[in-house]
Structure formats: structure tokens, C-alpha cells
């Protein structure tokens, strides 16, 4: 298969998922709203002391972003599996891995990217300093693709499995832990004067590893699900 047609397949997959998302706009918006609402629940559940809120802000924002991404995972493959589109993708002349990479990219564009852009606004609610906000955005920008990539494996593994929707969180959340630690840690390291560089570069290294392995593992999982 030529490189051009691989690229065509990739972009066809991205464009298709974006088109579908345009049709069900609520899908994208609700991921965002979920993020907003969960972060806002914390001050309600914990109480309004600014001091404490500022300290827990990076953690809360990251955990919420992580949960929001995770919740949107089940729309990654489930619908395509149920209506037979995934079967057709597996039978496409374009290698399945390329189409999967396209779908994951679209997922990030629709979930991770908007979350990253929205995070600073929510950070203000917690009275975070501008500098911390910048670090926060950087860590989310590098970290959310990792979440999409790893999440795709979990979503593929639980396809057509009983109770898949919640099972995916069980599989994926433990794997998300390093991203969470370095992501939220980056902000705290910056606040405590240690500099966020080390955390961010570890996050970037994780992105590289995930970008390399995850599409492969996801494809393998999809083929298993289709048997």
C-alpha cells in the first residue's frame, strides 16, 4: 500500500469521526460539561476554603480530565462495533492500524484538546496562579493524548463484552496512574520551585511509548473482538 493511500485512509478515518461528532454535537459538549461539573462538585463537597482549594486544584483538574476522557472512551469503538462498521473497517484495503490511529486522533481532537483549552478557565475557579495555569495546560496538552491512546486499548478490549462500559474504567484507570502523577505533579513541582521540566519530559516520553505501542495493541484487541 502506498504512503499516500495510507495517509488518505488515516485522514478519512479522522474526518469521518469528526463528521459524526458534528452530527451529534452534544457528544463533544457533554464531555466538556462533565469536566466542568465534576470540577465544580469538589468545592461543593469539600467546602470553600480558598487555601485548600488552591492546593488540591491541580489534582482535581487532572482527575476530572482523566475521568472525562475515560467516559468518552466508550463512544470510540462501541457504536461501530454494534452496527457492523468495525467489521467493514477490518476488511478495508487500508490496514486496520491506520484507521485505528485515525480514530484515536479524532478522539483526542474531540475530547483531550477541548479539555486542555478549557482547563485554565476552571483553574481560575480554584484561584490558581497564572504560572501554574500555564504549566497545567502544558501538562494536559502532552498528557491527554496519552490518555486517548491507552484508553483505546481498554475500549477495544471490552468491545461486546458484558458490562463493557464500566469494565473499561477498571482496565484503564490503573494504567492512567503514571500520566496522572506526572501531570498533576508538574504543577506542584513548579509551585514548590523544583521546576516542571522533568515531569513534562517524562510525560512526553510516555507519549512517545504510547504512540508507538498503543495503536498496535488496540488493533490486536479489535481483531480479537471481531472473531
Amino acid at each position, binding site marked *: *500500500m502506498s504512503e499516500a*493511500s495510507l495517509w*488518505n*485512509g488515516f485522514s*478519512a*478515518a479522522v*474526518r*469521518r469521526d469528526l*463528521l*459524526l461528532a458534528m*452530527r*451529534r454535537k452534544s457528544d463533544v459538549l457533554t464531555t466538556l460539561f462533565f469536566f466542568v461539573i465534576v470540577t465544580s462538585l469538589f468545592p461543593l463537597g469539600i467546602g470553600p476554603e480558598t487555601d485548600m482549594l488552591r492546593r488540591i486544584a491541580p489534582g482535581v483538574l487532572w482527575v476530572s480530565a482523566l475521568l472525562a476522557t475515560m467516559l468518552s472512551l466508550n463512544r470510540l469503538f462501541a*457504536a461501530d462495533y*454494534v*452496527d*457492523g*462498521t468495525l*467489521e*467493514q*473497517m*477490518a*476488511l*478495508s*484495503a*487500508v*490496514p486496520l492500524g491506520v*484507521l485505528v490511529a485515525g480514530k484515536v486522533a479524532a478522539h483526542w481532537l474531540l475530547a483531550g484538546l477541548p479539555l486542555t483549552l478549557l482547563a485554565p478557565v476552571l483553574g481560575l475557579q480554584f484561584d490558581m496562579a497564572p504560572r501554574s495555569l500555564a504549566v497545567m495546560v502544558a501538562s494536559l496538552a502532552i498528557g491527554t493524548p496519552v490518555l486517548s491512546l491507552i484508553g483505546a486499548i481498554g475500549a477495544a478490549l471490552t468491545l461486546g463484552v458484558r458490562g463493557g462500559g464500566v469494565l473499561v474504567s477498571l482496565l484503564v484507570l490503573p494504567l492512567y496512574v503514571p500520566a496522572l502523577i506526572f501531570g498533576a505533579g508538574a504543577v506542584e513541582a513548579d509551585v514548590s520551585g523544583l521546576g516542571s521540566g522533568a515531569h513534562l519530559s517524562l510525560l512526553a516520553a510516555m507519549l512517545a511509548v504510547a504512540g508507538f505501542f498503543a495503536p498496535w495493541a488496540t488493533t490486536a484487541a479489535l481483531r480479537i473482538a*471481531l*472473531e
Partner: protein
Amino acid sequence: MLEADNLECVRGDRSLFRDLSFRVDGGQCLLVSGLNGSGKTSLLRILCGLLAPMHGTVRWRGQPIRALGDAYRSELSYLGHLSAVKEELSAAENVEVASALAGRSVPAQAARSALAEAGLRRREDLPVRVLSQGQKRRVALARLLLGGSTLWLLDEPVTALDADAVKWLAGEIDRHVARGGVAVLTSHQDLPLATAPLQTLRLRA
């Protein structure tokens, strides 16, 4: 062109068929029949490579399909029990998008005329969700016709189709075979096919 060599299929713990061998050449059509649960769907999924047989090999132009991979898939179109249409997209978008994903982009005009042929004229821009059961199936068939592939694997293609549509589809299959294509079908209904070299394979559970 398409050869099955000593296939055995095991689902759960029952062997559905074993030592199944056949050969379908260009310009031929194979009709797989059998009672419910006799393994027609399983056979078709083995032929397109979605399911691995317990034993045996499937060959296309003399080569095992596992080895051919994408090259095989680029010559094949499969229509299963599931129609693979997106309810949110319009019929036309469905056809375009599915063709692009299959690695065979088609111009928008071609998609619309295929839909018109399938009897969906003036419904091209309705979201598929509001179409009736039979109309949804027609969208899937329109996509099939556009594929331009050599091997058609159709699992109960006439489900939900009315009599007119069945006749139309039979005509399309005839033309495909006449063009030198290969078609493997299953159906519980009689299909008014005119193609001469029609083999029938009867599976028994």
C-alpha cells in the same frame, strides 16, 4: 479464484462443518444454504478472514488469504447480518464515508447515483435513522455496488427487502458475475438469479 481447502469450523464446542472444500471461479456464483444455525454466517466470516478456521485454508488466486492480507481485502466486499450504516449520517454521507474508509473513495456524484439505483432517490439526504428497515439495507447495498471489487460475500442480502428490491439485487449480482466477478451468497429466500454457473453448497448442522 476462491478456494476453500478442508475447512473446519468450531463454534463453542460444536464442530459446524469439517472437510469442507470448494472452488468458485471468476464468473461463478456460489449459493450457501442450510438451516438456521448450520454455519452459513460462520463460513462467510471465515472466507473473508474475520474468523480463523479451526483447520484448513482459504485461498484467493492460489494464495492463502492470511498471506495476502490487505491485497485480498482490497478485492473483497462483505455484507453481513449487520448493515454497517451510521444512523446519524445521511444515506449519501454513509456511502461516501464508508467507501473512503474501505480505501476506495468515490466522488459524491457516484454515491448519489448508486443510491438512486438502489431505490433511494430523494431520500439521499435523510438521516438513515428515519429510514425503514428495508431502506437501511438498501444503503448498505448501494455501498456494495460502488466498491468495484471482484469478490462479493453477501450474508442474507435480501433481508427486509421488498419484492422489487430483491429482483433488482438479483440483477446486480448477475451483472457482477457476468463481468467475471465472484459472488458467494446465503439466503433463505429464492433469488431470481439468471446466472448460468450457480453452485449450491448445502450445510447441515
